């Protein structure tokens, strides 16, 4: 039973521990993120009654939240682990010595300083959210100033968005009149010139220093790098539900490597949705072009919901490429504030997930995907539906299952995706694009 909103989020730098921590006024719950050189080493949840905290108590709280993760990261030397290796290492990492925290800090610092020769372009796909976009561009002012190529793909397109972009000379403006996030992403890929395209959603605020770890992770063979997505605020119950009940990837503490072994080792459908989140994702531009771009039938604005990013990751893995999850790259995502939007998101997730499974099956013919879509997911939904009346009696109503169910039902109409071959992606830009 978690407390109701609003919750406060506190970021605690382990190397600059406060002498005292007071409960943020009005917060009914507090989430503490413990950071070491920017890496989220652990987190804790506290009620306001735990405050004010003395330095020693903060240290205890931080120690309990971060000790295990520190041991694992030192055991691997920050080298990305394969997904299936994680349980064994987590189970019994070697006992750290007294200098361990300082050594980990130095390791992270060194990792952050690593550079490679790749050029990056930032791509922001946006649709009718000019205010969010303005805030996003404001948070990227340093990148703009340093001459990084930034491409805004307007999937509206509308004049407000264009105005916001024009207010930042140096940011390129591209329109994509045909709706669909995948389509917009493809337009951005075509327009950009860097080796690597870094996607930033318009409702995301990257933390300073988020881009270098993404780039550094592109060792040969790596085609996609995803980073950590933190909630920007948890002021509304809907935001809390989005963070804790909707479940999306890109939340881990350890660097991870996904490759063929990930596909082979999974007993059911390989959980590509656990890899990361499209809200903080970088891709090798040429690879996207080689593989035919993002699947324009799938995702928001097309079939709907989600799955546009995970379908691409699935294709990358099948083609022999590797994906890295790099927790050193951190962005903050503004979750939806109200319940109707959250329910629509839950609908979209339920829906898009199934549709992308069909699309995946249509390309790769992996029976596990079809089994998940036609057996595993309905069973899971059915169980939730059966539990729902008991949840209501226990005064913990499940507010999302209805949306999940409707999403599933709607997705069944897209079963033909599983049996039709995908069209060759039309990657010629339809809209206008600046040449800056």
């Amino acid at each position, binding site marked *: *039973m*978690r*407390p109701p909103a609003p919750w406060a989020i506190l970021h605690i730098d*382990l190397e600059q*521990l406060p002498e005292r921590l007071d409960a943020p006024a009005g917060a009914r*719950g507090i989430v503490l993120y413990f950071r070491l050189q920017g890496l989220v080493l652990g987190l804790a*949840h*506290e*009620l306001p*009654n*735990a405050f004010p905290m*003395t*330095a*020693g*108590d*903060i*240290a*205890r709280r*931080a*120690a*309990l939240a*971060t*000790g*295990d993760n*520190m*041991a694992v990261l030192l055991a691997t030397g920050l080298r990305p682990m394969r997904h299936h290796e994680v349980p064994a290492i987590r*189970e*019994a*990492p*070697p*006992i*750290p*010595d*007294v200098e*361990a*925290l*300082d050594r980990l800090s130095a390791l992270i610092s060194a990792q952050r300083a690593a550079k490679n020769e790749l050029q990056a372009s930032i791509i922001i796909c946006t649709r009718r959210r000019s205010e969010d976009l303005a805030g996003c561009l404001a948070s990227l002012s340093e990148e703009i100033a340093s001459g990084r190529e930034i491409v805004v793909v307007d999937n509206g397109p509308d004049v407000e968005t264009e105005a916001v972009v024009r207010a930042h000379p140096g940011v390129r403006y591209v329109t994509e009149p045909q709706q669909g996030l995948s389509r917009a992403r493809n337009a951005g890929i075509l327009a950009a010139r860097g080796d690597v395209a870094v996607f930033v959603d318009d409702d995301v605020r990257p933390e300073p220093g988020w881009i270098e770890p993404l780039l550094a992770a592109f060792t040969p063979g790596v085609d996609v790098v995803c980073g950590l997505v933190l909630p920007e605020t948890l002021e509304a119950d809907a935001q809390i539900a989005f963070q804790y009940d909707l479940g999306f990837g890109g939340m881990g503490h350890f660097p991870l490597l996904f490759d063929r072994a990930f596909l082979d080792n999974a007993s059911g459908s390989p959980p590509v949705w656990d890899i990361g989140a499209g809200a903080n994702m970088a891709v090798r531009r040429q690879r996207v072009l080689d593989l035919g771009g993002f699947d324009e039938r799938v995702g928001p604005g097309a079939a709907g919901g989600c799955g546009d990013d995970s379908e691409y990751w699935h294709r990358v893995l099948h083609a022999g490429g590797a994906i890295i999850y790099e927790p050193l790259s951190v962005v903050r995502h503004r979750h939806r504030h109200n319940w109707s939007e959250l329910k629509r998101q839950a609908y979209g997730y339920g829906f898009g997930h199934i549709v992308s499974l069909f699309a995946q099956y249509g390309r790769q013919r992996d029976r596990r995907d079809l089994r998940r879509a036609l057996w595993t997911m309905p069973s899971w939904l059915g169980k939730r539906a059966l539990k729902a009346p008991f949840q209501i009696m226990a005064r913990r109503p499940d507010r999302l299952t209805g949306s999940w169910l409707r999403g599933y039902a709607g997705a069944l109409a897209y079963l033909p995706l599983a049996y039709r071959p995908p069209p060759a992606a039309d990657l010629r830009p339809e809209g206008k694009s600046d040449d800056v």
Partner: protein
Amino acid sequence: MKRTWMSHDLCAPWTIVNIELTQPLTPLNMDKAQGAYLLLRHRGRPSGRLLIGRSAFGDVVPVAELAPLVQRVGGSLASAYVVYDTLTAHLDKPSLPPLTIAICTRNRATLLRRTLAALVDLRDSRTGDATALDILVVDNAPPDGSTRDAVAEFAGLRYVMEPVPGLDFGRNRALRETDRAYLGFIDDDAIPDQGWLEGFAESLRDQPDAGAFTGPVLPLMLETEAQVRFEAAGGFGDGMDWLSYRKQRWNDPYYPANTGKLGTGTNMIFRTDTLRALDGFDEALDTGPPLPGGGDLDIFYRIVRSGAPLVYSPRQAVHHEHRQDMLGLRRQFRSWGLSMGALIRKNARFDPETKPAHRRVLAWLLVQHYGRMLAGYPLGRAAVPPSFVLSEISGLAQGLAGEYDRSLRRVTQRRKEHAQ
């Protein structure tokens, strides 16, 4: 994970081994013992406990088998200690406040001598405390002078006699007899761990407004079957927690009804003012048969419900000599059930806000806890015979059936008798 003991390992004796995690492991040799109880320590601080029966690996456990078990059981807290040490290196070192340690005892002079010797050692080995440790013996309704004589053998101890029988009468007498800001209790069959007072001082530095400080109660020896079985059943607390408890707890549907986790009377230190504000211990509990328990759980409950924090730290540990005989142990199981039942009824009446939590604890006890204990029996994995579990359940039933009220009446009677 491989099971490390079976029911047939649970005979006397077992050997107790301290393993320092910062030192390289060596093979574990059980000699003639039926099993080994490993207390894992990181720089002296308890960080885990592991029971390995002879049937798991034979009488010598090689390092290759030992290492993963030790890492898994002790690694979490050890890693936490490492982080904690780094983060607190710049803080003022913890210091011991003015403190009275009280031992409430009755007719156990031999055992008492061991406890007193350990406490006097602790007191005399400390330098740099602002005020020296005050050690107070409360002799509860003694039949003779043996306790007083034992106390006189040591230098600088205080002795008082509390005529009304009942452990909580004794504890409240200690409360009246102390002028220190902090008052701690240890039983006459326990001795403090080497870091007991450091653990308390550290907890106090980190949580200066806490009302109570508790910690693990570890076994002093495992020489009889009853002692071995008790530890295999979980002893005085399974995990090595390091927690600060408040009036409410995040996402814990059993809290605060699961007071068993908050600590045990054998190892508790209080802020004296907090105890006074709550009128001390409930004398209707811990009365000896028919209600020989509950006073500790009750005070912990009332302290957190009053809004004062309670801190449980693995560093604040004592070593306790468990019940030696099986019959005595079974009676103890019964008395725990009894006190639990009595407290559930008491709290339902005086603190109705926590009724749902108490209901959930009851449901958990009946279905999961006892169910699991009984189910272990046919699988050869039970720590105690089914009769023990049934004993506890029958105690619980009796406790729920109004034992607290009966005890209140008995105690009123007792007070009247002694007033004369």
